[in-house]
């Protein structure tokens, strides 16, 4: 048994032809965030702190759809959401509809630790942020020129779109068959386990390009986009609506608990049986230090490492080992 960590920057229809200038900064960010997490685990930080730390870093990176770099609603605004969960205590916190909070994941943690509630949203969550004195900025901080362009293109194509890596093409061949035209996906997340088997999971997102104002996805929903207990920690990404009705993150744990599957088997079952093809990916670690990263989309920005020296960073099915 040793520590392990896995993180993701979203799963989706990431074209194999992704240009180098879009690919490299994301790979560099994954590597950077992985190093931060590994260093924290090596200095014995609790997994709950580690996942918060890593997700903050991913939120601060404009290349991913969370925090700065969040995609825009149909009104051109940002509405962010996040969830964090501690495995041993099953304590959790979640937030939705944030417009000014620099690091939604840290507000989720404050909801968990400083309120009798689990989940705060919209104005009430913003008011709580002010009361707690977390860093807030003007909503324009989160909006990147790239995302303004993406919203414009999504509106021209008249659809809700999940991607953030590529300009939308009119080429419909790459679209999933769903009527709403969701094609690619973005969320960030991190799961970690320490040498004593303590687990934690954290997930954060800006949601979908051109989403309706007020839309909530899977990310803040405990058991859908994010879950941890004493067996495993899971962070999911993909088409929110499919992940919600598949209760993806909880089902990985439930399969281990009720059916005796291993982490790897449970994740494989959820990705192949509980969610339609092209809709979901997840990263997970178990209390015994196993790690798995699986998806049924074209790709998933992902990275993992474990104490035995294994490390991997990847986008498409064939990843590179470090």
């Amino acid at each position, binding site marked *: 048994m040793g520590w392990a960590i896995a993180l993701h920057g979203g799963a989706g229809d990431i074209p194999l032809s992704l240009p180098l200038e879009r690919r490299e900064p994301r790979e560099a960010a994954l590597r950077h965030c992985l190093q931060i997490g590994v260093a924290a685990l090596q200095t014995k930080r609790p997994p709950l702190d580690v996942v918060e730390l890593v997700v903050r870093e991913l939120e601060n990176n404009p290349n991913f759809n969370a925090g700065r770099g969040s995609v825009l609603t149909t009104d051109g605004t940002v509405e962010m959401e996040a969830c964090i969960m501690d495995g041993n205590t*099953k*304590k*959790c916190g*979640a937030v*939705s*509809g944030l417009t000014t909070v620099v690091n939604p994941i840290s507000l989720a943690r404050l909801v968990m630790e*400083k*309120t*009798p*509630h*689990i*989940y*705060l*949203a*919209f*104005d*009430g*969550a913003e*008011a*709580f942020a002010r009361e707690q004195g977390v860093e807030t900025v003007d909503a324009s901080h989160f909006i990147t020129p790239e995302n303004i362009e993406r919203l414009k293109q999504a509106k021209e194509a008249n659809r*809700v779109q999940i991607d953030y890596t590529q300009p939308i093409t009119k080429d419909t061949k790459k679209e999933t068959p769903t*009527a*709403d035209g*969701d094609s690619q996906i973005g969320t960030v997340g991190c799961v970690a386990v320490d040498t004593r088997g303590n687990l934690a999971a954290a997930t954060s997102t800006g949601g979908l390009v051109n*989403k*309706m*104002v*007020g*839309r*909530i*996805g899977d990310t803040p*929903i*405990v*058991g*859908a986009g994010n*879950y941890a207990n004493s067996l495993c920690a899971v962070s999911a990404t993909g088409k*929110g*609506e499919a992940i*919600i*009705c*598949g*209760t993806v993150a*909880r*089902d990985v744990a*439930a*399969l281990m608990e*009720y*059916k005796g599957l291993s982490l790897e088997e449970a994740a494989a079952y959820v990705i192949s049986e509980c969610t339609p093809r092209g809709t979901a990916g997840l990263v997970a670690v178990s209390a015994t230090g196993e790690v798995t990263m699986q998806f049924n989309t074209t790709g998933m920005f992902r990275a993992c490492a474990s104490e035995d020296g294994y490390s991997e960073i990847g986008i498409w099915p064939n990843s590179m080992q470090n």
Partner: protein
Amino acid sequence: MGGWAIAVHGGAGVDPNLPPQRQEEAKQLLTRCLNLGISALRSSLPAIDVVELVVRELESDPLFNSGRGSALTENGTVEMEASIMDGPKRRCGAVSGLTTVKNPISLARLVMDKSPHSYMAFAGAEEFARRQGVALVDNQYFITEENVGMLKLAKEANSILFDYRIPTVGLETCSAGAASVEAALQMNGLPISVYAPETVGCVVVDGQGRCAAGTSTGGLMNKMSGRIGDSPLIGAGTYAGELCGVSCTGEGEAIIRGTLSRDVAAVMEYKGLGLQEAVDFVIKERLDEGMAGMIAVSRNGEVAYGFNTTGMFRGCATEDGFMEVGIWE
């Protein structure tokens, strides 16, 4: 197929001193809702329609905490939430933070049927409601005089404390009416006399074995504005799949942590338990120290309920003529 079955609830965690007249009113309302559902099932309405119909009726009656009669936020306003799920294709819709929508469950249904999303909240959900043309009313419509009084009491009890769990020691033996323990009875940090049983819900399996579930609530008395509970969360307050439909009620945070409704389905699916076994297992194993109750139906036409609270307003009926309405154990 085992025929249709239906169950309804009006919340778990009931004041043992609830006046007999109120108990009688609650039973009458539960009976009326059951009968409404039964006649809809007899005229072959699909499960999902029956669930919506029955929950609308529960919302419209001020007796329980949903729609008219919702518990109040610390600001004295009403913020309602609801979710609905259709088992066969596991489609779902949810809403939170509604302030003017007369029947939140129907807006949840519209999110499921008419939007590309599964869950809409606050101003965006209100905007969606206006565009869909559902019945809207002033926020005052939902606020009852009784709840204004309850909020005052809740504030006086300075109740929503950070560490609000009470020791469960002795609670199991108090249901026989041990008056000395009643003073200590709490739900979600509130004295039981002030606590508004959190939710209404309905689960249905129709004659074709299709399961559906719906849950609606005003949430927790004296809650922070913006607080979301378990009711709108798929897998927590509401879940329906091929095998069963489940609606939960009680301490929202414990239900969320325990992914209670999904776990009833999960232990049936992954562990092979029967419906009542699954309900009992989840109440016993998945709640930690939390308190909650639930109703459930299976695709075989079975009905089940369970709770570890003092009482749950509930009623159930099956096609073979069984019918039961109750509050206490």
